């Protein structure tokens, strides 16, 4: 399969790989996907409590090149956005930016889900729980 140059660039030079302290009250963590589907994304945002703006974003992804690129791009876009602006990011924008082919659209959907899960986790910590889907958790 031919990848777009942007996908290759994100795969070779992923932005913002890493982890933020998940117990920090200003950090929201989203973990979406499933290993048996071949994609798991962990996306974290750190929100500045003063301004409500996302100061930092990190990701780790198990998945194909398009999944890695989608989450890497998402972290780039998240930085500097408010929480509400972050929730407005649509998977179709990721598809357009990375020129993802139809069989890879699920990667962009997963990235959008990861953003929503991370923001939801942050809001829950801040006592503003809403109906956004929760992240995966160990059952033990």
């Amino acid at each position, binding site marked *: 399969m031919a990848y777009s140059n942007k996908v290759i660039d994100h795969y070779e030079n992923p932005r913002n790989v890493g982890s933020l302290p998940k117990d920090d009250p200003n950090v929201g963590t989203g973990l979406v*996907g499933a290993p048996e*589907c071949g994609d798991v994304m962990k996306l974290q945002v750190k929100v500045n409590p003063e301004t409500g703006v996302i100061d930092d974003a990190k990701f780790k*992804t198990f998945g194909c090149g398009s999944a890695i690129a989608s989450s890497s791009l998402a972290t780039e876009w998240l930085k500097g956005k408010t929480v509400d602006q972050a929730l407005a990011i649509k998977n179709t924008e990721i598809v357009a930016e990375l020129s993802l082919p139809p069989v890879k659209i699920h990667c962009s959907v997963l990235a959008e889900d990861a953003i929503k899960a991370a923001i939801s986790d942050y809001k829950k910590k801040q006592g503003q729980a809403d109906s956004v889907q929760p992240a995966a*958790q160990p059952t033990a």
Partner: protein
Amino acid sequence: MAIKLPIYMDYHATTPVDPRVVETMVPYFTEQFGNAASRNHPFGWAAEDAVEQARKHVSDLIGAGAKEIVFTSGATESNNLAIKGVAEMYREKGRHIITAVTEHKAVIDTCKRLEKEDCRVTYLPVQKDGRISLDDLRNAISDRTILISIMTANNEIGVLQPIAEIGAIAKEKGILFHTDAVQAVGKVPFNVNDLKVDLVSLTAHKMYGPKGVGALYVRRRNPRVLLAPQIDGGGHERGMRSGTLNVPGIVGMGKAAALCKAEMTQDAARLGALRDRLNERLHKGLDEIYVNGSMEHRLPHSLNVSFAYVEGESLLMGINDVAVSSGSACTSASLEPSYVLKALGAGDDLAHSSIRFGLGRWTTQEEVDYVADKLITVVTRLREMSPLYELAKEGVDLSTMQWQVH
């Protein structure tokens, strides 16, 4: 010497044609272009002689008689002819066929079609090592069973099935035994009488011959196997496969078979050593990697490894100067990981993380070392960005996680 990139390590998919094979084929496109069925002039005689010599080479490779070889367009056609031909010819005797879940699609889908008619098909499971259980086979046999079709070596994992044991059971029960042997013949010793097989599918392009030509071995004695032809026409190949013979292709397959017979022992020893070197180097450089399928019952040039916590397609992307295959869903249109690896009981996550290495006649030690080192680098990098690796290192048991399955 600098390594030439990209490196080809996908010899299970296809092999390059040996230059000695090409050289043998060339005259049959131009000077010796006759139709092997033209019985009344020298052009036809020359073509027929060439075909008969090739038939001898192919039959010699598997310990068969020349008259037991039917040339086809390749192993998919051979599998179709064997299974459908038996199902139709032995219709009165029974309607039950036994095969295995890890067979090639050319066998599975042929059986599925017969199921839509009035056949019953048993798909035997495989054990963790990729081999069927002989007890399962015995239990599946009924007095309505007419055919057992079990491949000699699997195309994805290289695992060899207990063909001699299956052959003995089939013989004892009076059931015909077909094996798709495309990955094994020419690579490891194979003798139709020692193994007690009745039908064998072969293809030239997996043994350094050209694409578009294959063969079906059809036993003529003890028992004499009858097949209902699936292609009607001029009655070529003793009526079992009509169609003008692909003379250059058949000549190429014959030469390829002769070369394999002469060189198999030394090739297998060399490639087995290189394969083991690749495996050892990978295990030295990486933790949590798993060989899929039996190491003991395996083609010498074959290795299939799962690299836990990294996904196959992203791995292939990182080693894009190496041609290999992955069991990852993303490399197929279906979004389903390899059904063969799933059948071994490997979790879907490990099926997604697998790479198949196929070494061949022109694989060098330098290439093996390059591929191993490159994989170690890329797997390490991808694990650094893998949330699964991070969770595992934190001590989380991934199998207890509840995932949102999309």
